[in-house]
């Protein structure tokens, strides 16, 4: 259970960065942390004690493998994370080009 808790703490750090930081890059970093924590959580779920990676090396191998499904899901999640990070950073880059700052306080053109 402790490893799961570690993931939750990492998740909270990510949320903390997103909610309290005013720098766009810091927010993007917080988002990356959030994503890593969820990926790690998935990997921990599939872990089985004293089992091998789910890859057969020979025909007569005992089937003592870790769960392959979370690994497949994390693979998808990593790619989705990469995609969103790239998009987020390109928006941040454009915002810097227009406003010359990453500070969220100075980027308030839209009214309440």
């Amino acid at each position, binding site marked *: 259970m402790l490893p799961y808790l570690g993931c939750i703490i990492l998740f909270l750090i990510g949320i903390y960065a997103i909610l309290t930081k005013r720098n766009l890059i*810091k927010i993007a970093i917080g988002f990356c942390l959030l994503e890593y924590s969820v990926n790690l959580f998935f990997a921990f779920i599939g872990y089985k004690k004293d089992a091998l990676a789910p890859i057969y090396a020979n025909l007569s191998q005992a089937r003592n493998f870790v769960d392959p499904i979370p690994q497949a899901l994390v693979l998808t999640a990593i790619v989705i994370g990469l995609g969103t990070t790239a998009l987020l950073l390109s928006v941040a880059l454009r915002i810097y080009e227009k406003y010359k700052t990453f500070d969220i306080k100075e980027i308030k053109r839209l009214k309440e």
Partner: protein
Amino acid sequence: MIELYILLIISIGAGIVAVEIKDLLASAISLGIVGFSVAIMFILTQAPDLAIVQIVVEVLTVVIFVGVILKTTHIDTTLEDKLNVRDYLTKGIFALFGIFFLLFSILALKELPQFGMPIMKIASHYLVKGFEEIRAANQVAAVILDFRGYDTLGEATVLFTSVIGVLTILRKIGKIK
């Protein structure tokens, strides 16, 4: 599994550094440390496929971060301002929320199967069928491209979407006036 706990602590520490440090380049590098410790944790949890992908993706993420930071600025100027009442209020509310979330999750996580003992209801069938019917040695490949191939189509589409999205956003002119 002591190394797992050490890596978790390292990644939490590096995460805090990445969030709090003033130099954005150092921040991106700390993020890289988190990413690489995650990759090593993938190896420890017997997920070599994930470790490979995580390492290469991490390199790419850090390269993109550094690329953006070098083009713009590498000082987080927002940390120079003095904190006002509103900032303290946000932090206080977040602290309350965090403690509540942590307690609730501790209660909830107790009900999960113990760490290291997954149920593997579907997975045990995958491990048999993937070898005997699909005849793939790598079961993760069998899952992502045969049993759950449709998800992978979705994943490839997500990447495609974000590539087109990045190209869209980096256009010089959007509206014709």
